[in-house]
């Protein structure tokens, strides 16, 4: 089996004009939507998704069928929201899916909306994706013109309005309840859960919230059928995953692999491995929020939800960031912590203060002003953030920083000691002329 046989979402992704309705339909697009709307009952669609074990591709890996099953039945305003606020450092898979094949996402939104009986759907796309939003909006306009969106779609009496909502640069709006608040025209502060969005989400109505890649998988399931979909993947993680590989690798990019492929195959086989003469020091398996994995055995792990969790990390959004042995870890940890400090919404104290103080302590370590106590304190702050906030933004910093400190404690201490020695030497050099000029103090 060659690598291209495994491609589903990225199959022929570079075909010119795939982002237009004409080319997408010529390739069999919107047939899954036709089938779902005309032949299948909404419950059948949810059953299909549940049986094929489509798991959320946005980070948590929650079963999509189960999530859709939580949406209450009945005659109320329900909503479908697609989370395209991909802002995690290292993640860029949704960007490619939207830019190259927006109709696949729209088709997924239509099928999912019909399955939960939602008449309003929103795609919340991050504000930085200007070009991608333009493409998506053009595709939505095409779908409206063709009658795939709007009133009485395909004559089955199903109405759906799809709105592309552009964010304005806030990582926290990728958190599901933060996203809902932002979509309601408020600051993107996460909400207290429960109630979960499935019960009281957007405008307090039942809301199904899914990631771009998850919704792109929905038409696939209907096109391929449960059996064929489950064929690829590992024991518990079914299907393929678009993996974004970046950092110190020769060929950074998006690669689609069946879940359960080894990490070595992804980093060395597909992404070309680290630059000439370098070794891998550690890697983030699931974007910058995932605890780092290190050592040779970590490369032989299979890339799926369970194995990554067992190894003490997570698959997250499926973004591998490779760090090679030329990279000092303290500046990296500092850059990481600065990101979370900047993006913390400030609602919960452990996150707001924890990210701030983590940056300050890392700056002290970096500049050689750290005391031995700082290392303990730094580790302690990370444990005190974990699980103590409304959302996981603080945890997303505490996990990687905590794991880096735990696994590379010696390097952190060495970095601080070296910086201190440099400072001392500079001070001695600076004050040498003064000392020489000072009148010598005689014996007492």
């Amino acid at each position, binding site marked *: 089996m060659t690598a291209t046989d495994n491609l589903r979402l*990225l199959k022929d*992704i*570079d075909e010119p004009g795939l982002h237009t309705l004409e080319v997408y339909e010529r390739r069999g697009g919107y047939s899954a939507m036709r089938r779902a709307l005309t032949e299948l009952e909404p419950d059948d669609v949810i059953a299909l998704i549940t049986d094929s074990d489509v798991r959320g591709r946005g980070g948590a890996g929650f079963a999509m069928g189960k999530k859709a099953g939580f949406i209450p039945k009945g005659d109320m*305003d329900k909503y479908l929201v697609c989370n395209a606020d*991909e*802002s995690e*450092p*290292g*993640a*860029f898979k*949704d960007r*490619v899916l939207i*830019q*190259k094949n927006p109709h696949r996402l729209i088709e997924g939104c239509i099928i999912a909306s019909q399955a939960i009986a939602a008449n*309003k759907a929103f795609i919340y796309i991050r*504000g*930085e994706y*200007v*070009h991608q939003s333009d493409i998506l909006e053009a595709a939505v306009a095409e779908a409206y013109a063709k009658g795939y969106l709007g009133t009485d779609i395909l004559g089955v009496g199903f109405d759906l*309005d799809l*709105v592309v*909502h*552009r*964010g*304005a*640069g*806030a990582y926290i709006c990728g958190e599901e309840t933060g996203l809902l608040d932002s*979509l*309601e*025209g408020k*600051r*993107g502060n996460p909400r207290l859960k429960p109630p979960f969005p499935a019960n009281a989400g957007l*405008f307090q109505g039942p809301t199904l919230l899914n990631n771009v890649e998850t919704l792109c998988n929905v038409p696939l399931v209907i096109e391929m059928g449960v059996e064929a979909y489950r064929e690829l993947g590992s024991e518990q993680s079914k299907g393929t995953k678009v993996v*974004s590989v*970046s*950092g110190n690798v*020769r*060929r*950074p*990019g*998006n*690669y689609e692999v069946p879940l359960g492929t080894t990490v070595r195959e992804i980093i060395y086989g597909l992404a070309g491995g680290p*630059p000439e003469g370098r070794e891998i020091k550690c890697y*983030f398996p699931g974007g*910058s929020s995932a605890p780092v994995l290190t050592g040779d055995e970590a490369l032989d792990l299979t890339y799926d939800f369970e194995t990554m969790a067992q190894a003490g990390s997570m698959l997250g959004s499926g*973004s591998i*960031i490779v760090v090679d042995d*030329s*990279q000092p870890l303290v*500046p*990296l940890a500092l*850059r*990481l912590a600065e*990101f979370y400090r900047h*993006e913390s*919404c400030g609602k919960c104290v452990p996150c707001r203060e924890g990210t701030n103080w983590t940056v*300050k302590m890392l*700056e*002290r370590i970096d*500049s050689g002003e750290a005391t031995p106590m700082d290392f303990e304190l730094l580790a302690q702050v990370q444990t005190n953030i974990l699980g103590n906030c409304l959302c996981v933004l603080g945890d997303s910093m505490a996990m990687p920083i905590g794991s880096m400190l735990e696994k590379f404690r010696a390097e952190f201490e060495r970095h601080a000691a070296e910086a201190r020695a440099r400072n001392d030497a500079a001070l001695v050099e600076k004050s040498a002329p003064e000392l020489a000029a000072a009148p010598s103090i005689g014996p007492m």
Partner: protein
Amino acid sequence: MAERNGHANGSVRAKHPLVADRLVGLDHQIASGKPSVAAGWDLPADLDKDPAVIPQLADVRVPPELLAEIEYRMSLYPDPRSAVLPALKIAQVHHGYLSTLAMLQVAAVMKVTPAYLSSIASFYDMLHEESEGRHYVYVCTSVSCHLTNAKRVYEAIVEAADKLGLGDTDIREFECLGACDMQPMASVDGRYVGPLAPSDAPELVLALREGRVPLPGRGLDDADHMPAGAGDPPPQEDAP
């Protein structure tokens, strides 16, 4: 003290001056017309004053195209207030930044107080209540780009902009822009370019100053740009 007041050389103190330094700098900031605190911050609050009110559309002259666009966005949502972000963005494009007048106009159309809009605008990175320039260059210096020397690309661009006198442009470090396959990269008015090397900076700045498209052929949406999943190796430079 010399170290404490050291210029922006990436030193800890330069980025986060001590409180005393900040206060000393305050007079200078106010004199320069760009204070970091609101005017009147040290005066007691006037408790007799009326609370902020929602400006009436009849009292505020809103350009018709702005009015039409905001009203259209408001019609798309079950609750018109959802259109706050799009409306602020439209006003920002119209006025260059979210000036007091821009806020007043949006507030009048959307029937919210300007203070509410200000609370939103200050939350999001891409909304500006102060004039930052009509163009922007966001240089990603987040994790993956950090690993490929993005900091030096940023410094080179700032240096080139200073040297060549590029005005009306907001050049800043930005968090992950979601294009790590072209690391290190930058977003120039929404157009992603990369991979960048520090040596690209003068050409990029020059193109911006002359109103050309910078680095043709190296934008993400350019026809001949690398396809997904088959990126070229990033330019390797000596580690600092």
